């Protein structure tokens, strides 16, 4: 028995004993996920227990070092962890922007003190984070952002407005791009962290075409941010942001996401599939979807050993989001008029139609498909003038 076999046996036994049965049911929506944070309402006791048990072992962030709340797993061990979780259909104990986005940035750019403080909070699900990037006038052209932090000695005073801040109304803290030098475009932005309960912070949910409001407008009116709450160097926040965007794009791409092997053709076939042209489209889609699942696996394998091109997350984001939009177009077509239901209990409150509409943002948020293609052309293909 190799060390990895022993490790697998240990993980399997631990999961068997500690993962509550309710946490082995498929995730039907954001609602079923545990996001953590000061305001979070656990859906049931099992969800709370699952988070606590995992957090105690460092399993909410298995690859982070143990002093920061992780389990210190290496790449091979983490793969086993994912496989064993997948084997019993275990839900992730904790989902958060802290894990996916801020955490990796802090691991790379944070001070030791910041790492110990913030990463442990993230790992235990105590603080829920949101991301303050886009502004009304700065979408794809993010670097033109105007939110300004005025230097007041031991703190900044931040004024401005962010938009498309995911779950800002539910978050405890924000990681935020703030201009700290008006003379320099790229090297005039700093990466600041602050409490959403700070005086002067307010949020306003945006009603979307899906009828839901996952995003907010976020306003800063003379918000005081102590100087030690900066990540990385002054005016070099763009480096942190770019690094973090890579992780965001990876996350939105769905790479490494759970069960993609259940082809949608098979899902729709259960309710009857009489249209041969639709069947053909589904088959073509499933080829692409299964192929992308292999790509996701390869991408993660290569990232672990530094073989992936640094701009590869842009390709993953592009391909993954375009695929997801196609998936939902087909799910709508397969569902027929039943998929149009907006409110009924049978449709789970119009979940399919709302999810379909939600996917349209996939290729906009975190960098549009067009921006992704620009980045691939420039950084990977090295095309002229790109």
């Amino acid at each position: 028995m190799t060390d990895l076999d022993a490790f697998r046996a240990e993980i399997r036994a631990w999961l068997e004993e500690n993962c509550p049965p309710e946490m082995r049911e498929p995730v039907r929506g954001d609602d079923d996920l545990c996001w953590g944070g000061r305001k979070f309402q656990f859906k049931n006791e099992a969800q709370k227990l699952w988070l606590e048990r995992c957090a105690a072992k460092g399993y909410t962030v298995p690859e982070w070092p143990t002093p920061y709340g992780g389990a210190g797993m290496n790449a091979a061990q983490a793969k086993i962890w994912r496989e064993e979780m997948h084997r019993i259909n275990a839900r992730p104990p904790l989902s958060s922007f802290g894990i996916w986005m801020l955490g990796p940035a802090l691991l790379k750019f944070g001070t030791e003190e910041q790492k110990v403080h913030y990463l442990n909070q993230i790992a235990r699900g105590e603080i829920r984070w949101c991301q303050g990037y886009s502004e009304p006038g700065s979408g794809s052209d993010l670097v033109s952002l105007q939110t300004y932090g005025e230097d007041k000695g031991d703190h900044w005073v931040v004024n401005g407005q962010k938009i498309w801040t995911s779950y800002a109304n539910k978050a405890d803290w924000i990681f935020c791009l703030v201009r700290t030098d008006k003379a320099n475009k790229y090297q005039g932005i700093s990466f600041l962290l602050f409490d959403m309960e700070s005086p002067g912070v307010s949020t306003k949910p945006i009603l979307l075409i899906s009828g839901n409001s996952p995003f907010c407008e976020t306003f800063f009116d003379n918000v005081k941010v102590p100087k030690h709450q900066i990540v990385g160097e002054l005016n070099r926040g763009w480096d942190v942001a770019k690094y973090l965007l890579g992780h965001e794009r990876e996350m939105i791409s769905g790479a490494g996401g759970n069960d993609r092997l259940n082809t949608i053709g098979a899902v729709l076939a259960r309710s009857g599939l009489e249209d041969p042209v639709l069947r053909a489209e589904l088959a073509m889609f499933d080829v692409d979807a299964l192929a992308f699942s292999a790509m996701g696996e390869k991408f993660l394998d290569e990232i672990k050993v530094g073989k992936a091109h640094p701009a590869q997350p842009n390709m993953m984001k592009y391909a993954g989001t375009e695929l997801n939009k196609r998936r939902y177009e087909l799910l709508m077509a397969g569902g027929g008029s039943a998929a149009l239901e907006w409110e009924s209990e049978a449709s789970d409150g119009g979940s399919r139609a709302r999810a379909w509409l939600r996917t349209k943002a996939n290729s906009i948020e975190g960098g549009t498909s067009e921006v992704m293609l620009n980045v691939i052309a420039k950084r990977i293909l090295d095309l002229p003038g790109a």
Partner: protein
Amino acid sequence: MPLYHTDDQAMLADTARQFMAGEGAIAKQLRHWRDTNCKDGFGHGLWKQFAELGFTGILVDEADGGMGMGHVEAGIVLEEIGRNLTPSPFLTSSVMAATALGGASAELKGRYLPGLLAGDSVFAVAIDEGPKHRPERIATRAQRAGNGFSISGAKAFVVHGGSADMLVVAARTAGADDDADGITLFAVPKDAAGLSQDAVRLVDSSMATHVRLDNVAVDADAVIGEVDGGRELLGRMLNAGRVGAAAESVGVAGGAFDMTTTYLKQRKQFGRLIGEFQALQHRAAHLYSELEIARATVIKAQQLLDAGSDKADLMVSVAKAKAGKAAALAVKEGVQMHGGIGMTDEYDIGLYMKRDRALAEFMGDLHYHADRVARMSGY
């Protein structure tokens, strides 16, 4: 197993890359044999060199004198073959026939493998009976006669059939044309009485034959594997050919893509390099994305096949379909982005388009394999 090459595999890739780019180059092989109207469409000298490098026995067990490697390694050679459009009987002989012979008696192995390993023999596979890949339907019949069998029927578009010393023939020894059971594989020597072939040159300058079998008498020891139970071995041979063709497609696509991006950085119009135009940049970037995904799918399928996984069947079809789709896009965009010069015979990009078209049909096209994915997924 991680989805990238091990150090040993990377070394093999270096060897294959250098060899194909040098000895296997388009001017030296494809154009040469095409322009001299070669009846084989490939060079036997190059085939001997394949043998010297150990390529011909890459899928042959070490116990039988081969390299004892897997589909990942065979795919490495095929990707470079694709990139350089190197004509050779590697896919039919060293990948498909060798896979079938892996399930053959010691006697048959002894008869055919040494010639393959030495690069002296060429093999072909005679499965399909019409212009589309339909291995589910086999009407060619083999009946017991005397000590052996008498085979009658017709096979269509047998690649390298006319150059082959032996053809692996899939025939029916029991049941109706569409039955899964009742298939037997035979090793039929080229000079067997009653075997005749009409040669056809295909769009990519490769040679195929229409094979007629008219009471071809073979001994019982010409049976590869089991009588009536050949469907499983046929399936293995098909999987080897499909994932191999997918790897070659990825090479074809990569070669066309590299040519095209190089051209985008050289060609000027309106006083600018055409690669500066966003209309072309976005299409090139999309193509890059498709190629990366195809490459990942192919290595995944190769690994599953090498591991004997029960998911291999599904992923092999995904790989053949996806690689075909990506390669078709690569050659179409390649010709379009080259503009008028892409339509000339002088430029190589059109040769990539032709090879892609032939590879797409080989062992099932996108439509066939997408349908197969749907069936295996339960719809």
